[in-house]
Structures are given as structure tokens and as C-alpha cells.
């Protein structure tokens, strides 16, 4: 059926509820959510603040700062800067805090999957 991709793979017979309840997995989930949720709220608030300013505070946004460059343009360019910064920050965070623990869990599960003859089952996502 729909997820036939997953039937022949190494994880077919894993008790996922058991894995889900382990402290290790709970820690992975906590680390993931405690980063992405606040960050998502923060950048969305900053983005909508910008949109609201451009929409309803035209005079403020039109204030000239340097030559013809006004506040609106600077705030707009700062949206670019913050996007690049958050991207870099997230990559740094996942490389250090998420990937090692995810790999550990994966190896633990996939490492124990053998068929009756003792051969390692799959791993390939056919």
C-alpha cells in the first residue's frame, strides 16, 4: 500500500512505541522542538512586524537615513540578514545537538535487525 517504501527496510519489525518512549528519543524530540518552535515564532513575528510597518507605518518606513536609502529598505535588507543568520544557526545546532543522537538511535535499531539466517536485513530503501 501507500508506504510500501518502508516494508522491506531495516525498521520493518521495530517496536516504534517502545523506541518513542525511551529517554534518548524523548531527549532528541525535546532538543528538536525547543529549537525550531521558538525560532519559528521569532522569525514569523519579526516578518509580520515588518509587513505591518510597511502597510500601516508608511511615514516611518519612508524616513530617509542615508541619501535615498530609507528605513523601509534597511528593514527589508535586515530580513535577508536574519534569514541567513537563522539558517546558519540551525545548521550549527543540528550538527552538534541533533545529528549525533539521531544517528545513535538509528544505529541501535538498524544494527539489531537480522533475518533468520543472521544476515543483516536491508537498509536500502528500494
Amino acid at each position, binding site marked *: *500500500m501507500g508506504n510500501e517504501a518502508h516494508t522491506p527496510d531495516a525498521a520493518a519489525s521495530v517496536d516504534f512505541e517502545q523506541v518513542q518512549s525511551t529517554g534518548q528519543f524523548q531527549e532528541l524530540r525535546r532538543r528538536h522542538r525547543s529549537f525550531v518552535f521558538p*525560532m519559528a515564532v521569532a522569525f514569523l513575528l519579526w516578518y509580520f512586524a515588518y509587513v505591518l510597518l510597511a502597510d500601516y507605518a508608511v511615514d516611518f*518606513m519612508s524616513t530617509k537615513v542615508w*541619501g535615498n536609502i530609507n528605513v523601509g529598505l534597511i528593514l527589508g535588507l535586515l530580513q535577508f540578514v536574519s534569514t541567513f543568520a537563522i*539558517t546558519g544557526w540551525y545548521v550549527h545546532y543540528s550538527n552538534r545537538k541533533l545529528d549525533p543522537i539521531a544517528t545513535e*538511535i538509528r544505529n541501535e535499531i538498524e544494527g539489531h535487525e537480522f533475518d533468520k539466517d543472521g544476515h543483516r536485513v536491508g537498509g536500502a*530503501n528500494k
Partner: protein
Amino acid sequence: MIAIPAAVDVAALKDTTLLNMGIFGLFVAVTMVIVFRASRNNKTAADYYAAGRSFTGSQNGTAIAGDYLSAASFLGITGAIAINGYDGFMYSIGFLVAWLVALLLVAELLRNTGKFTMADVLSFRLKQRPVRIAAAISTLAVCFFYLLAQMAGAGSLISLLLGISDWGGQALVIIVVGALMIMYVLIGGMKGTTWVQIIKAMLLIAGAAVMTLWVLAIYGFNLSALLGGAVETANNPAVLNPGLQYGKTETSKLDFMSLGLALVLGTAALPHVLMRFYTVPTAKEARKSVVWSIWLIGLFYLFTLVLGYGAAALVGADTIKSAPGGVNAAAPLLAFHLGGPLLLGFISAVAFATILAVVAGLTITAAASFAHDIYANVIAKGKADAATEVRVARRTVVVIGILAILGGIFANGQNVAFLVALAFAVAASANLPTIIYSLFWRKFTTQGAVWSMYGGLASAILLIVFSPVVSGAKTSMIPGANFALFPLSNPGIVSIPLAFLLGWLGTTLDKRREDPAKQAEMEVRSLTGIGAEKAVDH
């Protein structure tokens, strides 16, 4: 520093039609050869839809950038800034910031749980049939709106190159473009399309970089002087301030909010972008590809700021509006102004390849969705073999191509970025709530998903049909009629919250509970990548 009188530009352009077309044709031929070469090993369904999961993160990231930097970004945003000034810049910002939603909340988790299509993920722990059908229908709808925009862009571009300004001629152009595109997809599949995207993304960014430096050089690398030039040509200092297009009334201000919402929430729900995450072997590569594409896309949107104001200063809004292709002609006209027929030919060819490749990507997504989700899983109940599925996909390509051509003929003349924003609104309404809920909300149920997807999709489409986009205004698709009951041209501000609400309501009122084992499996898979980490061996 003073712009050449506008009339000279367009008239001179007609004299060089042959040269424009020659350079253009050469480029199209080269990409065609690449597609043929790349498609030699298209054997399995994984090859056809997901390019055998053989691409690296940076390759895929470039391809995503290629998919994303469509005609909307290049022709549409440049035109919007050239004519509406600062308000056009909003597209660049929204389109870019939206990638953070994809990066943080969706890309990797999705890569770890799915196989080919968005429906694979959405139906993972819910009831297969209803969710899969709903996801496939919304995929088809989003792809259709996105295709409309690309077709309209192609019509504008070729009309400008050939100097065709009558409706019938432009319609013919759209038909030819559509036919070419069908060939691309039928022959190339995902691998061919991905290679075209990669090459074209690099050429597009390089071409835009050259034009940006050129424009900046004219103004002594002084952004302030460039902006001054735009003010001078437009004879209106307001081009630098927000509100030129959207600041007129309270309704139009609301429309701006609606646009902003749709732009930032749409990207992570675009089926053809989501599908690209499946062409890489691991979640880590999926992350790399998003990072790579954020850099490329961000860089490109900085260029569009210069190009848009450059076109405003050097070509002038009035010339752009009166040229064949209208607002979408700003970038090609700027190219012609700077580098004559050679640069125009190159830039147009790149823009055309952009459209062709994006259209191909969209069509493949739609075809995969129909063949894989509706045909293989619902009609044939999982008993169809891979060869039949690919055959169905190829037939779907033809049907979708024809529909897109017809739609494109009607959408011709609208700003491409604006049309794409409609596709974003439909995607954010129909798909995003269900994607977010099913990844992060344990209690989410089938009823919630179905309500949210159909509710979001139907409200977004109905609001567009009854908006000034379709009728009731001079710029409408059907200018003669007036059934515009909804005042905003982008439905996002209503339909997106509604879809989130429906997803919550449907779940809360659902007496059925979903299988907790499936939920556990999805969560563990999505965060750890079990079973999805290794590529198909060749």
C-alpha cells in the same frame, strides 16, 4: 545616466528579432540534448519521480533554487519593483523568509517519512484513501495555478522577443511552449528535469549577477544614486516608499497583509518543492540542499532589487507597461538596454529555460501525484506494477499540459509574481496545516486532515474565483463580467487561518482515534531517519 528615449528600445528590439531567436534557439537545443543524455537510465519509478535519490545536497539545492527562481522571481519581481517600487520588494522578502518554514519545520522530517509525494507523508498515520485523495487533489490544484503563471510568463517573454502584441499570436506562442514542455517531461523524467534546473539556475544567477553589476556600475556602485535615478525617471519619490500599489485604501492594505501571509507560508507547502527533498539520499543532504538554496535564492533576490529599480531608472515604467509582455517585460527590456540583442537573447533564453524547467518540474509532480496516489493506490488499490504507473504518469503529463496551456492563454498579461502568489495561497491553505499537524500534533486525525485540506482548498479557490483577479476590474481575466464578491486579490488571510481552524475542529470533533503505533512510527522515523537513510544502489 539619462535613459535612452523609451520608444527607441522597443523599436530597435524588433530589428533584432532574428538574432534574439537564434541565440535563444541554440540554448533550448543544448538543454534538450542534456535531457536526452540524462534520461538514458530512467527505469524504475524511483528513477522517474525521484531521480533514483542520487543527487547530492548541493546539486539538489541548486535544482531547488532553479525550481523556485521561476519566471515569477525573475520576470515578475523585477517587473513589480520597476512599476510599483517598494511594494514589489515585498515579494522578494516573503519568498525568501518562507524558506525558514521549510528548513526548520518541514524539509528533513518530510524526507525521512515519505517516498515520492506529499501524500505519502500526510497519509502515513491516517486513513490511506481519503487523505491520499485529498492530498493528490490539492497537489493538482496548486500545480495548476503555478503552471498558469509560468505559461503567462512564457507568453509575455516570447511575445516580446518576436514583437507579437495581438492576443491570437500570443495564444499560439503559449501553445508551442506547452508542447515543448510536454516533450521535455515525457523524455526526461525527474533526472533530466533536475539537470536542466541545475544548469539553468546557474545561468540565471550568473546572468542576473552580470546585469546587477552593470546597473550598479552605471551609477558608480552607489545604491542611493540608483534609487535617485528611479525617482527621477518615474518623476515620483514614492517609488522608494511602501504603499504605492497597496497603500491606497484600507482594503488594499489588507490585501498586502494577505499577500505577505501567503508568501511566507506557501513555500513549505508547494508539492513540487517538497518532492525535490526526495531526490537526495539522506535527511542531512535534504538539510544541506535547503541551506544551499536559501543562499542562492537570497543572493538572487538581492539582485532583483537592483534590477527592478534599474529597469525603473533606465527603461522607465511607462515603456515597460506599453511593451509586448507588459509588466513581465521589465527584465528583458533592461537587458536589451544594457547589452543589446546579445544580452537580451541570452537573458530571454535563460528565462525561457527557467519557465520550461519549472513547468516540467510542476508537471512531473502533478503526474506523480495522480499516478502514484490516485491511480496506483486508490484505483488499482496498490496492485499496479511500476511500469503501468509510469505509463499513467506519462499520460497525465499530456492532460495537465493541455489544461495549463488553456489556462495560460487566459492568464496572459497578468504579473507572473502575482499569479504565483495565488498558487502559494492555495498551497498554504490546502497543505500546510495538515503537514504541520501531522508532523507535530499527536492527536491529529483523519477527519481533521480531510476537513482542513478540502476546506482550505475550496475556500482559497472560491475566494479567487470571486475576487477582482477574475472579474470586476480592468485587469481581470474576464474584464467584461463582474461577480467579484470578495474584495481582496489574494485569499490567504481568510483561507489559511480557516484551514488551520478546520484541522483543529475536525480533530477535536472526531470520535475515532488514530493508531498510536503509527504515530510513534512516524515520529521516530521523521526525527531519526530510520529506514530512509540510504540511497538506492546502482
